[in-house]
Each structure stands twice: as structure tokens, then as C-alpha cells.
């Protein structure tokens, strides 16, 4: 005598899934007292689940991890950030920064050909057509003076540094510069100058 009741099949599933309510549990138990088929079904399933849970432990073969590590593709390993980046992150960041910086500064050397004067002083003579800057005789220019793509003639006094980029500096006999004076003609010098001003914040615009 087999019991085909869907209701009890569902209850058995619920019981095995741990989702049965106390009421349903009582109902199922009462039914199984009289229904051999449901009782057998329930216990057989329970036994199978028990057996699966108790299944003999299976462990990975010896040297498993070692073999996996050997199998990892070199291509993937190499595509990962190099060891030394992880070990020296600050140094790497500095190197990357310098390379990028160098590149952008070099680009500047090649493309920036406009005449420009950087100075806080108002008593200098600027000739934009001739690309010349003059510090007039008897005048004192306070602060640094930077001339790009032009020449400078110092007849008076500069109390600060003078930098001429891609240009010439002419000193009159009375001319005087209290700070450093520098002419930049080469890309390498230019890069060095830019890096220096970047880090020290010397250049004033």
C-alpha cells in the first residue's frame, strides 16, 4: 500500500530541510504511524543524508599546492606589478613622477617659444617686438627676474636672481645683480631648472 499524498511528501521534504513547524511535525508523525510507505520513505532519505554527511573524508593528494603553484602561467605573473614596486612604493612613485615630469618639461622646451617676462617689478623696460628687457640705468629692480625667449640688458641693479631662458644676458659696466645669474640654452639645463623651481617654488609668475 503506497501513499501518493503530495501533502505528506512535502511535509517530509520540509522536515528534512529543517523547515517544518511543530504542528506539521506532529501531523507527519501521526500519519507515519499508520502509513508504512511514508515512514519508509522518510527514514530512507534520512539515512542517505546521514551517510553523505559522514562520507569518508577525501583530502587533496600530496604536493597539490606545490603543483598548482608550478602551473600558474608566467605570463600572468609577469603582468602583475613587479616585486620591487611593492617593496619600494615611495621610490617607485618618485621615479615615475620624475619620468613624467621630465617628459612634460621637455615638451615645454620644444613648444614654448613665446617671449615672456616674469617679474614683480614695474620699473623695467619691456620691448615685446624686439624680445628684449632692459633694467634701466639708475633703477633698482627688487625680486627675481625671469626672461623666456628673449634677451636682457642690465644697466641698473637687480636685487635678486636673473634667469634668461633661450636668450642672452648683457651686462652694462654699471649693471649689477646681487643674486644668481643664469642663462639657459640647453634642454637639459632647462629641465634641471624647471625641476629645481618646481621643488623649491622659486619661480614667481
Amino acid at each position: 500500500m503506497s501513499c501518493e499524498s503530495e501533502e505528506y511528501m512535502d511535509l517530509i521534504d520540509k522536515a528534512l530541510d529543517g523547515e517544518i513547524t511543530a504542528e506539521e511535525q506532529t501531523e507527519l508523525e501521526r500519519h507515519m504511524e499508520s502509513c508504512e510507505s511514508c515512514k519508509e520513505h522518510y527514514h530512507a532519505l534520512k539515512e542517505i543524508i546521514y551517510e553523505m554527511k559522514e562520507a569518508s573524508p577525501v583530502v587533496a593528494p600530496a604536493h597539490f599546492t606545490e603543483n598548482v603553484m608550478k602551473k600558474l602561467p608566467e605570463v600572468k605573473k609577469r603582468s602583475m606589478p613587479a616585486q620591487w614596486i611593492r617593496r619600494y612604493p615611495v621610490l617607485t612613485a618618485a621615479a615615475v613622477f620624475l619620468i613624467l615630469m621630465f617628459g612634460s618639461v621637455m615638451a615645454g622646451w620644444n613648444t614654448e617659444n613665446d617671449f615672456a617676462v616674469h617679474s614683480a617689478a614695474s620699473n623695467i623696460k619691456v620691448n615685446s617686438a624686439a624680445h628684449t628687457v632692459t633694467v634701466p640705468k639708475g633703477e633698482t629692480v627688487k625680486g627675481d627676474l625671469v626672461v623666456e625667449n628673449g634677451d636682457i640688458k642690465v644697466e641698473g641693479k637687480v636685487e635678486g636672481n636673473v634667469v634668461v631662458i633661450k636668450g642672452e644676458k648683457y651686462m652694462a659696466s654699471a649693471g649689477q645683480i646681487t643674486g644668481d645669474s643664469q642663462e639657459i640654452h640647453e634642454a637639459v639645463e632647462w629641465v634641471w631648472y624647471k625641476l629645481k623651481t618646481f621643488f623649491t617654488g622659486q619661480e614667481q609668475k
Partner: protein
Amino acid sequence: MESLINSLVTQVKSGNWEAFEGLVEIYKDKIYRLCYRMVGDRHEAEDLAQEAFVRAFVNIDKYSGSYKFSTWLYRIATNLCIDRLRKKKPDYSMDAEIPGTEGATLYSQVADADPLPEEEVEEKEKHDHLQQEIMKLPEKYRTAILLKYIEDMSLEEISSVMDLPVPTVKTRIHRGREALKKAYKKVAKSR
């Protein structure tokens, strides 16, 4: 444990591939066991479990961390096993004529071949009665049953691994254990 695993995953992702060793150590038994129960052959299980780890390593950037690493790893492993099972048991008929071979059927080809490895497998695994019964289950029930009762996963986890809704997982577990029961019954009667 979970934080150790996350830390190892992060390390591997940031390029410290040696940290992957820790992850293999933690999961090797579980993944190997799953593969063994799925395919029923130790040698093949080792091959599949190793492949699962290699794939996890290669695709580590694709692991987003929105679910557990183990879930992701189990998914890779079960998919590999299912693929292997499908390749082993092509779903065309044994009597079907093989294209390009005059009059030859798959059946005749198999008959001509060397002693069937299946017999060896059966012989080797005879002691493992449960494994034999598991091997008889259709793969979709087998996966659900194994994850539930051998790997002791929750329905939600199985649902993530199998990429199926929870009710479907539930149905598969019910049907799977039903099928197992029937197989057991037969064995019991024949004894």
C-alpha cells in the same frame, strides 16, 4: 578566517602572486573533494581541482568581492567538472552514424577501442558505494546534492555557486536525494 582570505586575495590582486599559495592551502581539500565527488575518479579530480585554482589565479581581477571567495572558487570548480562530464558523455546517440566514417557508429568504435576505462574506474571505486550512487545522479542534481550535503552549504550559497534561484536549488536537492534513495533501495533489494 574570512579576513585572512580577503587579505590574501587583496595581496594576490596587487601583484604578490606568492600569496596565492595560502589560498590553495586553505581550499585544496574542499575543492578536490568536490571534484572527486563530481567525476568519481581521483586522478581526474586532481587534474580538475588544479585547473580550478589556475583559472581562479588567472581571473583573479574578475573576482569583485561582492560574494565570498569560496563561492567564486566553487563556481569555477563545478563548471569545470560539469564541462568535463559533458565531454565524456556526449549527448548524441551511440547508434548514430559518425560523419565521415562510412557505416561506423559510435558503438562500433567504442567496441573496437582498448578496454573501457569505465570498468577500471568501477573496479577501483567499488569500495566507495556512496560515490557510485552519486555518480548515477544527473549532473544538475549531483552538483546541488554535493554542495548541500558534502560541502554543507546553505541554499543561498548554492544558489550563488550554481547561479540559480533558491527555489530551483531546493527542487534539485529534493529530486537528487529522491533519486539517491531509489538507487539505494535497488541495491538493498539486490543484496
